[in-house]
């Protein structure tokens, strides 16, 4: 049913989204779908990498490790943003179109009062994405 899953990831907090990563791996195996791990980052040095090139290669290594772990076909797609904290959702939505994903699978926290004021990334993606979106609550 699904052929290409987009999995937005935050490499700085990969440990926290384990539930989502595992579910994504299982979904991909079930449908025989390909997974593209997408990360949005700035060009300034950050906690993951010193340069955008280093970030891209780390994301590539992450995707390869996930392929090995779940026995699935994966790819990596990194998006450089001028202001990653603000542009994250829009860049992810654009990336879903660009790579031609038919399912987005991502982690999100359990919504609370603050989500009325400040919607979560997962919430915004689910609301605006053109394709099916699977939010995995793990936090």
């Amino acid at each position, binding site marked *: 049913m699904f052929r290409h899953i987009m999995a937005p990831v935050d490499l*700085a907090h990969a440990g926290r989204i384990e539930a989502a990563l595992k579910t994504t791996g299982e979904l991909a195996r079930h449908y025989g779908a390909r997974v593209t791990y997408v990360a949005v*980052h*700035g*060009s*300034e*040095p*950050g*906690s993951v990498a*010193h*340069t955008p*090139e280093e970030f891209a290669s780390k994301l590539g290594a992450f995707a390869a490790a996930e392929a090995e772990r779940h026995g699935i076909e994966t790819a990596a797609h990194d998006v450089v943003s*001028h*202001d*990653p*904290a*603000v*542009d994250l959702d829009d860049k992810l939505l654009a990336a879903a179109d660009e790579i031609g994903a038919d399912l987005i699978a991502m982690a999100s926290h359990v919504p*609370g*009062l*603050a989500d009325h*004021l*400040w919607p979560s990334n997962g919430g915004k993606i689910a609301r605006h994405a053109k394709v099916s979106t699977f939010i995995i609550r793990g936090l």
Partner: protein
Amino acid sequence: MSDDTENHGIPAPEGASDVIETEYSVGQDNIETQIGPFGLDIHNPVFMISGLAIVVFVFYTLALPEQAGSVFSWLFDTVTKSFDWFFLSAANIFVLFCLLLIVTPVGSVRLGGAEARPDYGYIGWFAMLFAAGMGIGLMFYGVSEPLTHFGTSLGGVTVGENGVRTDWAPLGGAEGDVIAAERLGFAATIFHWGLHPWAIYAVVALALALFSYNKGLPLTIRSAFYPILGERVWGWWGHVIDVLAVFATLFGLATSLGFGATQANAGLNELFGVPIGSTTQVLLISGITAIALVSVLRGLDGGVKVLSEINMGLAFLLLLFVLLVGPTLATLTGFVDYLGAYLQHLPALSNPVGREDLNFEQGWTSFYWAWWISWSPFVGMFIARVSRGRTVREFIVCVLLIPSLVCILWMSVFGGVAVDQVVSDGYTAAQDAPLELKLFKMLAELPLAGITSIIGIVLVIVFFVTSSDSGSLVIDTITAGGKVDAPVPQRVFWCIFEGAVAIVLLLSAGGLASLQSMVISTGLPFTIVLLVMCVAIWRGLMAERRS
């Protein structure tokens, strides 16, 4: 390894760009936590100390206004009067250093590595660095400063009983000679708004961009000190540098927002009869902060960049209008003539020792240099943030030469028309008006004054909004240890905090003035910081690949 030791820990170039090998990773000292519904990702010592110190200073100023006022004004006087030679010499060094970078082969080093491509096109980039750099100042001083220096120059030299000059004329003045006074007045104005301030910004911006994009260190002020302090830069040395930068930025923005509100209030009163008072001013600050918050939430591309482009467009239209309806030909010849006068008087104006025009040199030049330098962490950091992918040569030309030329043109047109109104028409309303009304009085004498005055007010307000927004961005990045992807609520916090500090200071008698004196005094330690940055830039560039 031999290269490493020879080059103060900076590795020799191998690939497109070589990062400095350090044990430190961006954000390692950060605290990630949840306060109520909001996530936080902050550099603990820097965030807490700067936040608390700001609150302590505000309380001190409120609790003991007279003492704070006298302490800060003493500090300000000492700094600008005793260290005038230091500010003037340092600023000359920054200009020469930048010009040197253009002509030497290191000018071809690209920020972000040989393969990097510019993040922004020329128009967006230029609009942003101009709006952050001096947009608001041009609105207030474009008319006022040429008029003042023209007036004092024409008045000539007066000597007091003790043999010390009591006049405020630049250099030897030009008593009774209208043409020479005009030339000297404009040369002095351009001197304060041309190469020197932009060289100050360029040094800070280049240091930060180089050590962040090419060397892989966090985008924060302390990183430029790595070649000098080594790993110690991640400890208290670095904390002090960053806290000082946050401090200068927040108080600089808050005090200018407070004064800006008073000035905008005066303008609105003149044009629409809006009452002058703290209620209007508090509403203005709240309004500016609210618009800045919307801009903060729209991010760098959707907020600051869009506003900067709108402002550049409006400012250009206003400039074109004043040029066309004023004495066009005289203004254009004036531009060339004033540029020549600037170059002619530059050596004497920038001379740091043996000056006789002490009032001008200490009260204007030294004050301005301290002022630009205290703004430089904010403006430099913001320019660095948007300048990835440019070569050093292109960077210096666009941050130093082009803005200087634009400022000269702006001053020649606005100041030129105002001076012409005095000389040719005997219209002295602009000359006699208080600072905040000079622009509007000058516009009042030209056609369509109603429309142009409204454009003027919109420009003032939007320039404040962009400052508030980009300031929040810069303070947030520094207090998040150089992280640019910290949660947005932190930026919102700084934006509101800045507005709140401005309101509290506005409501206390003399609070704004005394804290502004303190901010300008931070120019002194930052001058040392900037001189060190020049050394660091040179060492850093020598180890980069040239394209």
